[in-house]
């Protein structure tokens, strides 16, 4: 006999279990960030004692941020580490936004073409061309890295922004095509047919009619690419040395050279992560949309 109270009890314990697991995982996800943020305000003594809570366990200090030139007393003075940091920040921003932009342009055109016209390149039909694009995703970067390294040396593209942009565009292009193909397939063809009957060319109808409809899809593809490029380390570590060095490369070199200065490393790591955490909070909808795009259609 199932009574009302037993159902109630059952559902309450179930609720506790669900929220317990969710909160536990939230803790796992967020604790490293909390740890890094607090460590960046610790002094050597509070680091080695493994203290956790600011103001109660230890007194926060600006030491880590001062070394980086971002503490209140150094922010308006000359600071070489800050110059260095900002230069890397600017490099990363420039390279990743250019690469994402280029990938979105090339990828949207290709995805639109594949969703609207039948192509034939030799033996390759549309499904083969799609596969050709998407198969680039499987290619591990290490296969390209060494030949590209040597080719770039001959072409004088090593350690240049344009060289990095081209490589990054390549790594994210398949993802853009994947997302945008679904987006274009969802736009009814009748809209463009009407425009074409009225005498517009395919390119005019693409820009005037289709593009405005898929802007949200383009935005989520762009944001996803931006994040991937922003975090990329492997190729940047091989190709760049001084001029085009990106932030992950700078942080990685600091990790190996001065891992004892915890407050410093924590400040740099926090600075590297901060833009992405902000992006996650405000652009979550777009990021999730981009990543979920492939899952549903399969």
């Amino acid at each position, binding site marked *: 006999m199932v009574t009302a109270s037993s159902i109630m009890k059952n559902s309450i314990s179930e609720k506790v279990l*669900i929220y317990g*697991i*969710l909160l536990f*995982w*939230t803790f796992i*996800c967020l604790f*490293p960030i909390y740890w*890094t943020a607090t*460590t960046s305000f610790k002094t050597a003594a509070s680091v080695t*004692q493994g203290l956790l809570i600011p103001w109660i366990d230890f007194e926060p200090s600006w030491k880590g941020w001062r070394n980086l030139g971002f503490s209140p007393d150094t922010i308006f003075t000359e600071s070489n580490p800050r110059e260095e940091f900002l230069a890397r920040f600017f490099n990363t921003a420039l390279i990743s936004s250019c690469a994402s932009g280029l990938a979105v342009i090339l990828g949207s*055109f*290709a995805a639109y*073409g594949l969703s*609207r016209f*039948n*192509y034939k390149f030799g033996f390759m039909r549309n499904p083969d*061309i799609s596969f*050709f694009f998407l198969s*680039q*995703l*499987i*290619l*591990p970067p*290490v*296969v*390209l890295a*060494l*030949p*590209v390294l*040597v080719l770039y040396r*001959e*072409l*004088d593209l090593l350690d240049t922004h344009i060289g990095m942009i*081209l490589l990054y565009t*390549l790594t994210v*292009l398949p993802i853009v*095509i994947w997302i945008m193909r679904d987006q274009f397939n969802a736009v009814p*063809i009748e809209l463009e*047919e009407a425009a074409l*009957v009225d005498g517009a060319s395919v390119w005019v109808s693409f820009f005037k009619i289709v593009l405005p409809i898929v802007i949200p899809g383009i935005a989520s593809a762009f944001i996803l690419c931006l994040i991937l490029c*922003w*975090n990329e*380390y492997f190729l940047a*570590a*091989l190709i760049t040395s001084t001029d085009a060095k990106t932030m*992950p490369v700078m942080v*990685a070199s600091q990790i190996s050279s001065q891992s004892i200065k915890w407050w410093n*490393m*924590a400040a740099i790591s926090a600075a*590297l*992560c901060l833009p992405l*955490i902000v992006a*996650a909070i405000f652009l*979550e909808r777009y990021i*999730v949309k981009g*990543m*979920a795009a*492939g*899952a549903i259609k*399969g």
Partner: protein
Amino acid sequence: MSEVKSIERDPLYVVAPSIVSPATKRAGKILVWSTFLLMLIIGLIQTLHTFEKIDFGFSNWRPVLYSYILWAIAIGYSRVLIYGEKGKRNLFIFPAVMFIISIVIFPMLFGLYISFTDWNLSSLDGRKFNGLDNFYQMMSDPYYWNALKNMIYYVLAVLVEFAIAFLLAMLLNSQIRGRKFFRIAFLIPLMLSPVAVSWMVGKSMLEQRFGPVANLGRYLGWETPTFFSSPEIARLTMMCMDAWTFIPLMIIMLLAGLQALPKEVLEAAKVDGANKWTMFKNIIFPIMLPVSLTTLVIRIIFKLKLADIIIIVTAGGPGGATDSVTSFIVREYRDRSNVGYGTLLSFVYLILIIIFMTILIRFVNRWLQRAA
């Protein structure tokens, strides 16, 4: 007429009057050939200059690159000149195809060549063709096989990640408050740079003297909480760190699938008195199968590229126990700067990946067809 028949109708099909005059057609062909010739001449000058047959030339190969780009643009433009409206349609995919061919296919062909050479970038001798020597060296290189074996472990860890991600996605999809907060919190690890994660988790939290995780381990009774000294534990630690970063991706994809489940079917099953477990086993899991398999395949693709955190945190140690193929090749290149051998290793890896992925995808498709 037969031409029109052989190509099936485009999804977007309009009879467009597209008459191209012979003069325009000729202009298009001249454009392509003249730019091609220009590239050939510049390339020839540069080749002769490099081999010191002639003393004028350019300091690097960039002019050849510029003429190549010019040629590519000319080909694209000539499509429109020669084929009219049909050429404009080709122009949609032409840039992307051309881009990938230039940046992937050319370096790959070049790489295929250098994988049969002995080429030390730092020495002045340049490259020497050495046939299959690199291949024989690979066959007797225990560290490479060890790295491949590690990759098998790493890929198998995906199944555990999948189970965790599925559970969390199910919970996120249930009737809970604050879903938006949990979704953002769960997403954050994926957003962080692997480099930052390496320091935040690998170097500081797992620090054996005063890292919080080590402290927790000591509190729970583990006397010497070291995470990178014994091979098994080191590998497990790397798996956990990688899982931490990528479980969010799987959660997002699985959650998208769960939200698309047909509500009526679930309601009907509930009315019929199915309990949670039978509902999961007989309804949710079978319907989710395509999404689950897609998620797994994508996750495995990312897993096969695993390198950053290993390079930074352990550099493959202890004794190669955490090496992935990529991190091993990078070390091989850094230590001996031997481009030829490294390239051969990466090509062998690529071939293995292609074989593995082909089998996997075929297997997945067969499974899906049987399930449907």
